[in-house]
């Protein structure tokens, strides 16, 4: 009996101890394939990996949407249905063409690193921390510019736009429902970030494949943003900084331009989005299905001097598919050899844009001669036998716009260029079977894209753009 009692007390106390020892700690489990933010930032090496995650989350280049919404591209009868609402300007808040969620996802990842470093992160060297912080600031500026130019009006030719609604400025990751800041406030943050980034970032091309922000890429971003903001001096200066860096040079041969888009190798590339898997180019040319869904308009094609402009053969090929009912297709994203069709990098900044920005900004400042010099430099590299256009005044501005259109088609610019300059969309070559309208007036509400429906549902503080 005594042994029994002893046994009992042993068993009892043992099992009580087992359970008492469990407690809260016992209930802490760690997911094996995920990590906490603390671990993701724990060493400087991990911080660089997390920085790579910010690049991954940063908004990409929409290569067709903003050409389809404008006048550079049309939908062919071979369409599988994509971008139908964009082409017909019938998009709604339920399917907004703007990259709202994607841009903020990048911003949030960047904010986490920015705040960690500003709050006294001590791993690595100061140079490393500065580099990471600067790149994140540049990425944030880039993402906010993607947002503000899509959802708010542009101050370029309309300073009142600065007081209009832009997008919410979020500087830290928190579960909140912020209201929209003004366009001016968004640009203030963008310029602040760019200026700080330029003081922090020292390495030009950390990766060696131009996928990271270095001082030149940040200046390129500054040039573009300044152009949208109407800060012409700044735009011209940033563009000059990139051109003067000596790191980049214009292609002046057809082979060079072809390699730029086919092999994704060129001295023109300033900052690119790397793509190893997604067949982004297939709507423009799909050899597997023998279709072309989205094709350049005759309006665009007819702008080129076919005999002399090296871009014509580099950017366009004759269509082999009669069903598409077009003569040419865009050859910009055929896909790198060895990868699936349409798997191609995209370019956020190429050197030609810097010449175009510089020209436009100087022309706006009335410095026509300097503006023409910049424009002619680009034209001479692109058009065989070209020396100078000799334009000035409005003609010069039109020439810059034309050159921009020819140079940067299918790189996500056209819609925003028209919007920035307050111009309507006018389609001559228009597939009326797929759109009721072929013209969108400059004051049409659709130039401000709708805030996505799900944001309105989740965030009561958001005011929708008018018309939707």
């Amino acid at each position: 009996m005594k042994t029994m009692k002893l046994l009992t007390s042993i068993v009892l106390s043992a099992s009580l101890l087992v359970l008492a020892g469990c407690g809260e700690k016992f209930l802490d489990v760690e997911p094996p394939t995920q990590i906490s933010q603390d671990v993701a930032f724990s060493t400087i090496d991990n911080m660089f990996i997390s920085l790579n995650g910010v690049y991954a989350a940063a908004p990409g280049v929409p290569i067709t949407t903003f050409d389809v919404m404008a006048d550079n591209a049309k939908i062919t009868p071979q369409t599988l249905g994509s971008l139908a609402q964009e082409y017909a300007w019938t998009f709604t808040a339920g399917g907004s063409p703007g990259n709202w969620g994607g841009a903020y996802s990048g911003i949030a990842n960047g904010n986490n690193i920015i705040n960690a470093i500003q709050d006294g992160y001590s791993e690595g060297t100061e140079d490393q921390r500065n580099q990471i912080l600067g790149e994140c600031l540049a990425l944030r500026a880039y993402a906010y510019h993607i947002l503000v130019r899509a959802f708010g009006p542009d101050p370029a030719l309309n300073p009142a736009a600065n007081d209009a609604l832009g997008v919410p400025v979020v500087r830290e990751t928190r579960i909140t429902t912020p209201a929209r800041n003004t366009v001016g406030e968004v640009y203030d943050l963008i310029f602040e970030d760019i200026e700080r980034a330029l003081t922090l970032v020292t390495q030009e091309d950390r990766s060696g494949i131009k996928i990271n922000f270095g001082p030149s890429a940040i200046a390129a971003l500054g040039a573009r943003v300044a152009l949208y903001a109407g800060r012409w001096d700044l735009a011209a200066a940033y563009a000059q900084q990139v051109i003067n860096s000596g790191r980049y040079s214009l292609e002046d041969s057809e082979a060079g331009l072809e390699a730029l888009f086919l092999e994704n190798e060129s001295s023109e590339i300033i900052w690119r989005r790397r793509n190893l898997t997604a067949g982004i180019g297939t709507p423009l040319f799909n050899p597997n299905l023998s279709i072309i869904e989205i094709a350049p308009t005759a309006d665009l094609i007819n702008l080129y001097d076919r005999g002399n402009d090296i871009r014509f053969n580099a950017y366009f090929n004759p269509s082999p598919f009669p069903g598409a009912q077009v003569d040419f297709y865009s050859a910009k994203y055929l896909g790198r050899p060895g990868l699936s069709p349409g798997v191609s990098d995209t370019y956020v900044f190429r050197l030609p844009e810097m010449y175009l920005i510089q020209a436009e900004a100087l022309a706006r400042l009335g410095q026509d001669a300097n503006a023409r010099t910049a424009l002619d430099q680009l034209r001479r590299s692109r058009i065989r036998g070209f020396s100078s256009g000799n334009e000035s005044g409005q003609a010069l501005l039109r020439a810059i716009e034309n050159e921009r259109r020819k140079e940067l088609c299918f790189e996500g610019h056209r819609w925003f260029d028209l919007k920035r300059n307050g111009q309507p969309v006018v389609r001559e070559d228009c597939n009326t079977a797929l759109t009721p309208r072929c013209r969108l007036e400059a004051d049409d509400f659709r130039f401000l894209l709708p805030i996505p429906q799900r944001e309105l549902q989740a965030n009561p503080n958001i005011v929708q753009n008018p018309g939707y």
Partner: protein
Amino acid sequence: MKKQLLMMLTLMLFVCGNALAQRTVTGTVIDPDLNFPLPGVTVQVKGTQTGTISDSEGKYSIEVPEGKNTLVFRYVGYETKEEAIGSRTVIDVQLKEKVTELTDVIVDGYVQKDRPKITGSFAEVTSKTIEQVPIASFDQILQGQAPGLLATATSGRPGAPARVRIRGSSSINSSNEPLYIMDGVQILAQDFAALNPNDIESVQVLKDASATALYGSRASNGVIVIRTKRGQAGTTRFGYRMQQGWQTKTQDRFDMMDAREKLQFEMDLGDRTGAAAEPGVVDSLAALNTNWRDEFFRTARMQSHEVFASGGDEKNRFYISGQYFQQEGIQLGSQLDRFTGRINFSHDNGKKLRLGINATGGFTEDQFLVVERGANLNNPVTQAYIANPYEPVRNPETGEFNQNLTTGPNLIRELDMNDDTQKLFKVVGNVFLEYDILDNLTFRTSWGIDYRRASTARYFSPEGYLGGLNNPAGSLAKSFSDHFQYVGTNTLTYRKNIGTDHQITAIAGQEVIHRTFNNLSASSVGIVNPDLRPLFSNTQVPTDARDQVSVGSGFNENRLVSYFTNVNYLFQAKYAIDAAVRVDGSSRFGSENRFGAFYSIGGAWNIDQEDFIKGISFIQDLKLRLSYGTQGNQEIGNYAWQPFYGAFAYAGDPAFGQIQPGNPNYRWETNQVLNFGIDYALLDGRVSGTIDVYNSRTIDLFIATQLSSTTGFANLDQNVGVMRNRGIELALNAEIVRPTEVGGFSWNISGNFTYNQNRILDLFQEEEFILGTSIVKEGFPLGTQFSVRYAGVDPATGRGMYYDENGNVSMTFNDRYQVALPNTTWDAPMFGGITTSASYKGFTLSVFGSYIMNSFTLNNNRFFMENPVSFANFNQSRRLFDAWQQPGDVTDVPRWRSAENFFSTRFIEDASFFRLRNVVLSYNLPREWLESTKVIQQAQLSLQAQNLFTLTRYTSFDPEAASNLQVFDYPVPRVYTLGVDITF
């Protein structure tokens, strides 16, 4: 020796009882139906702890203390009987087999309580029901057997688990599977096929909050408590049970075209010239007339052999069993082989200590079809219906397999050369120790495991069509996974009777559960030689395939720490009150809400114990129950609450990015359940049953709410939303003829009915979520079909007509016309079962049918089989001959060239059914015959048929649905079995 033991037991009990003058009573206990002595019957002096057990010849002897005058006889599966002793010293007793099959003691897994103390809603299924039905997965046997429990066969594949719902679905985004507990161990709600159903003694279905109280945090979908067989003291009994069966496919409720019809159809349609180009070809093709159903489905064998031994003495008891079960599937290529063993052993040191082990191990080998279910041309069931009848399985001249059909690969050939197997090793068991610290206070500790190891291999021959899709041809994929869970439970149980008026049962306990899952998988393509199946061997994988190997692994875990208590008080055997609290800490929930508390309170009034009822001769049992309490659901991802980063790649380099915002407030989904019940037995117990009415509100539903994208996240898992289930459950049992009345003939009928109404009351930010062809919408039940309403065929044009969103008939179809269809849910709101059995002189015929009502399923098969527009090159249903042909024709099948064929209510059908699940004719050999053998104590022969017929309007092969739409599911077979059951 035996007598000594009995003496010791008697003495021991006597020590615990009171030492007054005594007398000895002896006697024999027999089963009057079988005229057979019953060993192992518990004989107890009422109102004392004094008891004994009848020996192998049914004989007992017991010392009765002074002042006590009643003996109670209890035996599992038999009616309890009380005998007043009076002046008798020899009392022979006849115990009748229980027709209601309810035991007097409810074991909820933690504590056992006599029926009068029960305040919750329980239903029970006993071994008798389970042993009758040779089905690999025991959950399928529960169909129609318990009110409130809806079990649906999800597939006719051998070993396929059922879909089980208790009182409807309580969750939208989490699991609705009940919690399964076997001998105190939580087991996975799957792979029941690795357990031997015949080892089960009873299955308790715990429904309301009072019944599930001690499982609180995991009980929102009800609890199924499985108790396995224990040894009976007395002479060791040996048993052999054999079942041999044949399975066939049930009759379809539609016909496919034969070869000539299909060819004529194609010619009439006119857009297909390949097969039927010339009249001469038509005749030779028509002559082939392959019936692909006959080729894919077979008469399949099944067999089961089982031995068991049960016995012991007052100290040690054991139950040992072993079984081999083999079932071919009616679908070519599917098969289940199972080996199981069990040992249940317990020891009672005769003083205060008891300990034991209950353990089972099962090994199964499953042959799967490579693809099961779905409109996939690699699904054999799909090909059985839509392969063209004018194409042969084998070339009629050479006898070689026809490699490819116009409708895809020849799967008869593919099934022959490819393999998809799973080997599963499963162990479930626990060891326990009980010690009586005081007379009234017992400590129990139990430690159990649920272990499952699965290895799978999927092989595609390089010579097959499917294997040929790999470059280079052929592939092999293998995986190992390992699931381990332990459960440790410590309880203190206190039982105290104060006088005869007060009975207290109280329990307090702690529990800890830790579950881990590990897996490793690898695959490679390129098989050089079908006889050699290497994964990574450099010598046998072709050079160009050496980089096409992939390896993966996974791990996850979760833990639960719990504290619980339950107090039950019964006053004068009339009034019971039962209160329970369980507090759980779960690793799945947020740091702010890691612990959740669940409680219940219940009361019962045993009216039959009241004096004013005792005089009423036709009332034997009458009890009212009322309970209220909460039940939780924690079936979410193991890391769902945590904020975290994930690893991926950008530009070929590793990258970290935030994935999940985390919700430190994430907590349990909670059911608030109110239950009212009546238990009754009237007319000398001829009519008995239960009635339960309940209202269950699930609050804090797990819903992925939308976040402002400015947070960087799209969704946040939150506890919002409300859903309700309310219903009524009826169970009725009637003994129409008792054996003593009409010369040994007996007949009874029992049935149950459940009505459960589900309503989604609140979905937080949105009013509805569309899930393909079904919709989750406020004000509608879960499982509501979402479709365009079909308005029939326009007699003038033969085109389908549809109702638009305003209810007007439209000649064109538009997705916008989709509406949530009221009262059209596939999750049946009404269901039940009915059983009748009659016995005469050892013969017993029992017939069991189950039914569901008001279930609506999208018959997706018809979309493919009645679709001359898109699927004319596949075989089609003869229903197309009813199609509109000329103006004025009135039909619901549109014209062939209608150029439209859309998902609409045209394909949503009433899948209500009554199914004759089981008919058993059994014969117990007369005892006189067996006596001469001196060895065999009991022998039973039985003939059985499962799924004999189904009454339904549903026009596919089977109205039982595993989801809101049916797409070439594996049909449930009809089974005939012959059984022999012998006890030595």
